[in-house]
């Protein structure tokens, strides 16, 4: 029904393919430029933004530092409010719980609010395997689902598509999923949004079961919060008889009051608005209003791995605003698919290895390197996740996890060789003589010059090819420091 990320190549390979697509690069540059401007202008309206970020980070930290207590409290309050609470260790358990609820109500379809966590656990595919159709109702998710495509952004999963491509998807694919697109559909965004409204309305009106995530789960009051724009969330949370919400355990906020900094930080960071069009909050079942059967699935799926990492656990503060994606020079050029996960961009580069572990698969291990460490993500993050710090920490873990490999990576061989040369004065002198000779050769025969005139090696063959395919290596100096010191008596002669 929809494509999956399973079997994606490691980042460098996937990025190369993305970079070769001029339409994709144009779409991304346009969209990220638009959203960066909007965010900058609404953040500039708040003089106390920096203090607000500090409080936002502190609120999430205080929730995480006593997470067990808050989770137990959340469960108690939810149950007292009439909700049914389930716990799921992993994706398969969570999907089975949702499928069981739908099956018990003989539902052949469910309507879905856009939710990162249900993407993470592959819920749509799991439900399809049980003969249950899961309809995405967010406009971008609908575009991705109808196009049999993959999401490429946390907030706007179809950011890689432009209006003409979206019109084509609606015209060719909507009919098979329900009400067809009108014949005279144009690529005007308002017309495209109108077509989605008509297409989904019949699904909202007949749906018996809805599935959502939650942006926040308030422990003290047993309240779930969904932040959205279109009203598809309100439709799903209000019209069906049964609501199942899958909530990552890191979504907990300790108190109702702690919603305040979050609701000031999230919309401005995310869509660049003072406030998003719609936010719904509900505390279990409300008699006579909305679903009368409410389930909450509390999901681990690797979050406790991330929590156990004392440097990496700050990533669990993430409120999925996607500000870090929009400011990232790497994301802006490669797009989200290259990260091979529903969590792309800088946050994905740390979250995926933290959830799945390092040293397990090559694709995940490639992610901490998908960054220039420029730090723009940290500056933009509303809850001050120091993404560069975690990236460097995870690179260490990736290297450590390969120490016992039988076949060493070229980088490890180079480091071992360097350690051998540097640990003995005579060996170092020999190496310096060799590098001085290389410097002379490159200076004499090499054609590449760096700005300023320093000679450099162009593409070199063999083990150095991977390094020099995208970089110029400066020619080594003809004389080493030690040789110069000896020749000039420390600069005196």
């Amino acid at each position: 029904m929809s494509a999956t990320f399973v079997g994606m190549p490691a980042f460098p390979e996937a990025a190369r393919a993305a970079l070769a697509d001029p339409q994709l690069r144009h779409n991304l540059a346009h969209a990220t430029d638009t959203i960066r401007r909007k965010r900058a202008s609404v953040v500039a309206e708040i003089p106390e933004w920096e203090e607000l970020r500090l409080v936002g980070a502190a609120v999430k930290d205080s929730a995480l530092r006593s997470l067990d207590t808050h989770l137990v409290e959340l469960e108690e309050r939810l149950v007292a409010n009439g909700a049914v609470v389930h716990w799921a260790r992993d994706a398969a358990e969570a999907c089975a719980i949702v499928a069981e609820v739908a099956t018990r109500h003989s539902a052949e379809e469910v309507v879905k609010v856009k939710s990162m966590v249900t993407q993470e656990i592959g819920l749509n595919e799991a439900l399809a395997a049980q003969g249950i159709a899961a309809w995405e109702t967010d406009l971008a998710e609908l575009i991705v689902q109808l196009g049999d495509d993959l999401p490429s952004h946390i907030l706007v999963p179809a950011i890689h598509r432009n209006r003409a491509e979206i019109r084509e998807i609606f015209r060719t694919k909507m009919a098979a999923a329900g009400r067809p697109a009108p014949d005279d559909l144009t690529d005007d965004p308002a017309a495209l949004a109108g077509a989605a409204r008509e297409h989904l309305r019949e699904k909202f009106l007949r749906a018996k079961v809805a599935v959502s995530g939650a942006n926040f789960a308030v422990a003290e009051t047993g309240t779930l919060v969904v932040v959205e724009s279109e009203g598809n969330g309100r439709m799903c949370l209000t019209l069906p008889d049964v609501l199942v919400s899958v909530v990552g355990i890191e979504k907990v906020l300790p108190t109702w009051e702690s919603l305040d900094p979050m609701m000031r930080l999230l919309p401005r960071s995310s869509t660049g608005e003072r406030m998003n069009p719609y936010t719904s909050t509900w505390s279990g079942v409300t008699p006579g209003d909305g679903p009368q059967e409410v389930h909450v699935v509390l999901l681990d799926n690797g979050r406790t791995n991330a929590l156990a990492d004392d440097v990496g656990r700050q990533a669990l503060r993430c409120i999925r605003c996607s500000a870090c994606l929009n400011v990232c020079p790497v994301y802006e050029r490669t797009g989200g698919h290259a990260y091979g996960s529903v969590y792309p961009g800088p946050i994905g580069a740390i979250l995926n290895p933290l959830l799945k572990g390092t040293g397990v698969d090559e694709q995940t291990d490639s992610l901490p390197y998908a960054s220039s460490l420029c730090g723009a993500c940290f500056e933009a993050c509303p809850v001050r996740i120091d993404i560069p710090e975690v990236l460097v920490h995870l690179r260490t873990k990736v290297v450590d996890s390969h120490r016992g490999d039988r076949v060493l990576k070229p980088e490890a061989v180079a480091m071992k060789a360097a350690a051998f040369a540097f640990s003995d004065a005579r060996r170092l002198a020999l190496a310096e003589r060799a590098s001085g000779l290389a410097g002379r050769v490159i200076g004499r025969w090499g054609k590449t010059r760096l700005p300023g005139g320093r000679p450099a090696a162009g593409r070199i063959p063999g083990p150095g090819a991977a390094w020099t395919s995208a970089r110029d290596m400066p020619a080594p100096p003809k004389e080493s420091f030690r040789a110069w010191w000896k020749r000039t008596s420390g600069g005196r002669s």
Partner: protein
Amino acid sequence: MSARDEILGRVRAALADVDTSADVAVPAAPRSAAPPGDVVELFLERVADYRAVVERCSVADLVERVRAALPEGGRVVVPPGLEIEIVGAVADDHLSAAELDAVDAVVTAARVGIAETGTIVLDHQPDQGRRALSLVPDHHVCVVRADQIVPDVPDAVTMLDPSRPQTWISGPSATSDIELDRVEGVHGPRVLHVIVVDP
């Protein structure tokens, strides 16, 4: 072991290095300086920024203003506890979703208005009706009393009761999903008409 006990066990093991005994309470979030001028005027300006229709009137003019805000000849539904007389309107009596879909407009009250962000919060008491009521019809006329408007988000959060379902509304339904361009009008009411009434 149950999934619950196992997850809680993993959380505790993951936090074994964390000592919370010296943790201090999270400081209250900083508040913005009071907006210069009238909060009601700021509210009107900020709601209008979302391309909602806004107006301000006196109690004496309210009934007439609400009537003028409704689509001509349209079917109108109101929550059972609305204290504004609207000729020809149907009071909600457990209408089905399909029945609500056949209605053109809804008139509700509100619980609180937030000036800084131009947000209306409904907590779905009898004068606002259940959540579906202000969602399915395409035209929402919302009456906010001037004294219900607070300066900023923290003021609203403190006043609101989390045990009640809430809907925070900032302008008409919108999306930025196509090239990150904001377009009004997707699934929620495409017209939001806010009338602030001075007591």
